[in-house]
């Protein structure tokens, strides 16, 4: 689990977290008591219609603005570590 989240948790953090999580998860059991047969899950709580717009190109941020917060950049691109070893 800790690996899936890419949080790099320490052993101590994992231990404390799992204790707190199991407390929280115990609280979820109350949901199983609810009869939800035939109930559809809420995907859009306030119904929306006509959210599509024409596909028109509009101005957005400049390249310099897009890169302005990058921890590391090169030749107008974000720098990413090698993924293949």
């Amino acid at each position, binding site marked *: *689990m*800790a690996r*899936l*989240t*890419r*949080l*790099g*948790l*320490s052993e101590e*953090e994992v231990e404390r*977290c799992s204790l*707190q*999580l199991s*407390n*929280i*998860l115990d*609280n*979820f059991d*109350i*949901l*199983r008591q*609810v009869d*939800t047969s035939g*109930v*559809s*899950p*809420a*995907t859009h*709580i*306030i119904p*929306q*219609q*006509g*959210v599509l*717009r024409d596909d028109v190109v509009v101005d957005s*941020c400049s390249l310099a*603005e*897009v890169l*302005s*917060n*990058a*921890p*590391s950049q090169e030749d107008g691109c*974000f*720098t*990413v*570590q*090698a*993924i293949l*070893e």
Partner: protein
Amino acid sequence: MQAGKLYELTIHEAHELLRSRQISSLELTKSVLMRIAEVDGSVRACVTVAEDAALQEAKKVDHYINAGQEISPLAGIPVLIKDVICTRGIRTTCSSKMLENFVPPYDATVVERLKAQRAVILGKTNMDEFAMGSSNEHSAFFPTHNPWDLSRVPGGSSGGSAVAVSTDEALYALGTDTGGSIRQPAGFCSVVGLKPTYGRVSRFGLVAFASSLDQIGPLTKDVTDCALVMNAIAGHDPRDSTSACHPVPDYTRHLVPDIKGLKLGIPREYLVEGTQPEVRAALEKAIDRLRELGADIDWDVSLPHTKYGLAAYNIIAPCEASANLARYDGVKYGYCAGSAGSVIEATERTRQLGFGPEVKRRIMLGTYALSAGYYDAYYLQAQKVRTLMKQEFDRAFEKYDALVTPTSPTVPFKMGDRLDDPMAMYLADVCTLPVNIAGIPAISIPAGFAEDRSPSPGSGPGQGLPIGMQIMGKPFDEGTLLRIAFAYEQATYWHKRRPPI
């Protein structure tokens, strides 16, 4: 009006004085900046104060007024923005180490709309990291203190915004509300806080926490100001596909002190076990006042699915958060812990050092609940319960114009009291989160004070701890909420009390 006390004004009072040129925006802005310098060291509501930009904007507004131009209601009025809403050129941190140095290249739509009215943006307010928390103790920088008793929490996650309005560090503020994050701190600090209907206000430029629950809304000194800010920020935005096309009324037209014949229900599940007697007593008194004003009160209302709200919320919000926060990998923006080791090791180090404990806890919880084998049991079941809760509200609103509850079951708690017990912390939102689950609007207004049972030195006689009343309404019926809140406010003086600071 003494020049030094201009910071005490409401928006509508300041607007009249600006329009008639009795004061200038520069004087007003300087007064508020002085107030920040005076009190923020004690309450710590602000993360960033953009003094120079604010003074420049104020001068520009004065120029317009002096040229004889008509000004809009928010022109020249100083505002603080919760630090989860993007402001072009002003650092936007989410009170997280992850975004400590992030300077957005664009404005959120709500910020654009305030700027279109020539609002004076003073800076950004402290919050629980990524809006996850109910006390502002989860800020990665420093906790914010409740001005009514500095040893207590201001509520959260918009604690900085609520405190700023309560202490006159701004004439109003913007906050966000995912499970109560506008209303609960508004109640704890004795200011007005509105969570609009899901989709009423654009979220373009809001750093996402739980996308099916988040809404932006105003925190103000009174109900009239709340209507004025709603007029500015509500409405459809083509850049946010969840924003509604529903027409926006002039909310100030709902500010009539007449609620004769309105049907108000009091759902008994909101007076949960653990509701403090002072809170219950204040609510009963407030409801009596609403009855005297002509409202038709029904105490015999039940929304039985309310008791599942906390559990459903604690699945849906972390699930959405775990997906939304996956983007923080130290590549495009935000904190980066360096590139030593493999790409996975580097990402893990960045997230380990960039996120605080509550954020990690919710990412863990959400990842778990969405993982293979658990999806049906947790997320899907929570979403089905959500449908049932929404249907229950729909049925109640066939009978009632609005529902009235406490904003929180307790008065502001002591700092540190709930920090090591996440379940106790989550209970602080038990009355507010069903509103986000159902997507409906709700307002919290000052409804009284509980006498402090352990007065701290300097708190002064008669200074109690604030109690908020929540009014919940039908989707897109913010107008009725403002009308009830306005009528109540006109008949009481709670909103006139100022904290002892």
